[in-house]
């Protein structure tokens, strides 16, 4: 694999370590065109991909004093990026699994509902379904279904009772189910139509 010029990057890293925001911007601009298509290719939803990219570079900034110890900045950035892409792929897998169970409860097979969707459409659909939930409910749903937290941990984390967590999960599942049913009947063809036009 051809890496970007290591000496240039090392120089940028040194300047960033000293708190130089211009150097940081230069680094960000240099890597964005390569990393954004890469991450978007795997996470599919651009909003999520942008969040990940911001996260990577804000972390680099937050730990800037340590950058002088990185001998190959390009390889280092790629490594962080691939790891985050994998983490998010895993999350998608967990979400899809949860969604499939919810859909199955309606007596419909995943194939019926999602069979005609491409990976990008499917991920966008999951994203929309989860983001149609109210803030707190969404947070709880994501912690339990994506991150695998126990009800007790979520309760402690948010300072609410375990019963509230359980109630919110039930409500979230119902809402997602409704979303799927509605989408299965109306919205999915509509989305497809719009996508095809583009």
């Amino acid at each position, binding site marked *: *694999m*051809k890496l970007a010029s290591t000496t240039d990057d090392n120089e940028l890293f040194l300047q960033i370590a000293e708190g130089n*925001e211009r150097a*940081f*911007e230069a680094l*960000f*601009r240099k890597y*964005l*065109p*390569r*990393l*954004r*298509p*890469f991450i978007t*290719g*795997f996470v*599919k939803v651009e909003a999520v991909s*942008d969040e990940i*990219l*911001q996260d990577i*570079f*804000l*972390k680099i*900034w*937050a*730990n800037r004093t*340590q950058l*002088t*110890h*990185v001998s190959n900045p390009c390889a*280092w950035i*790629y*490594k962080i*990026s*691939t*790891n985050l*892409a*994998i983490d998010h*792929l*895993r999350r*998608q*897998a*967990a979400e*899809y*699994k949860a969604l499939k169970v919810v859909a199955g409860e309606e007596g419909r097979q*995943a*194939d019926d509902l*999602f*069979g005609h*969707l*491409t*990976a*990008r459409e*499917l991920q966008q659909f999951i994203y929309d379904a989860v983001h149609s939930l109210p803030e707190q409910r969404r947070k709880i749903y994501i912690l339990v279904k994506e991150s695998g*937290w126990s009800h007790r*941990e979520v309760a*402690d*984390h*948010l*300072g609410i009772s375990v019963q509230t967590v359980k109630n919110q999960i039930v409500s979230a599942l119902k809402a997602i189910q409704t979303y799927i049913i509605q989408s299965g009947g109306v919205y999915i063809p509509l989305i497809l139509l719009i996508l095809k036009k583009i």
Partner: protein
Amino acid sequence: MNTETITQLLERYFHDQATLAEQEALFKYLEENPGNEQWETLLLKFIPEAVESGEREEKYNFLVKSVLGKLKVRNSKRRWLAVAASVIALLGVGLYFYTNHKTAGPVAVAAPDSAPITAPSANRATITLADGSVVYLDSVANGQLAQLGNIQLVKLANGQIAYRTADGQILKEPQNNTLTNPRGSRIIDMQLSDGSHVWLNAGSSITYPVFFTGNERTVTLEGEAYFEVTEDKSKPFYVRFSPTSKEERAGTVEVLGTYFNVNAYSDEENIKEIKVTLLEGSVRVSNPGIPSRIINPGQQAGLTKNGISVRQVDLNDIMSWKNGYFNLNDLAFTEIMNQLERWYDIDAVYPAGVPNIGLFGKIGRDLSLAETLTSLGDMGVRCRMEGKRLIITK
């Protein structure tokens, strides 16, 4: 499934050509293969080597602006936190209290009957070298403390201890040193040979190799320390805990370039757990025989031999010791006394039992013991000093 099949699946997924069955196959395989290393190699191939011209500019402006904006917010927020911390330190006491029963009338705090005990003004830390010899850090001037092969142990002008590598032959045998910070000693700040920083609280010790050889960086901690670990994914950083006689405490914190605090004092009798609190980055907390946990910034993992619990905590409270004050929030009475014991090198005793008083707020660590006790007296704690013993009567 072999690598070729996986690569094809990823390829189709990436280009949005995978069927639902293929997506499901990929997800299933992901779930079955949790190790990241294999995936890293596979995914790396998808990062484009060259970028089409014209790809670089305006298209990404919104993202760049968004991140640069957050940079400034983050900076100013930090500055504010630092200012807030120093204001509290200057005030000495920023204290609030409540008691279960409102105490009426004056509260007796007996004057100390011996020389007044002040806050530690010096650092009494020592380093035990591999050959057993002991270096007293406070008694030596700045500069070189010891030469270990091609590694120099130096004391910097700001009192920080650091290991510096010089050119020349490399240490053949890994050597372990132990930094011990006794009770009644100021916090000591040390830099390991890889650039990682460790702040060691009073009554704590850490054992570490002078130079990290091999594929990992492992240190052993007793007591409390705050770490700022240099990222080096090829050499994961581990903090281990030595089991104590009281209970079998073991466990590991695996670190990926990060800021975190570990409280593993074994004298906190009502707390049978090691507390790992994350400020930034990522750490995995594990103990043989139980599932490991990765915690997020702002979370604390409580590690016992039976399991790991994760909770949200106030980072300002947890980091009080490093920022110059005692934290009283969310702590048992005995835990608060443990802090005083270590800082003033005294022993608290409870002839009338442990008082049922809830305390909260913060007390500056630069106060003398008498001043601190007066503050506690205001909250209904009755006590007196006898030599180095603090007798709590109510």
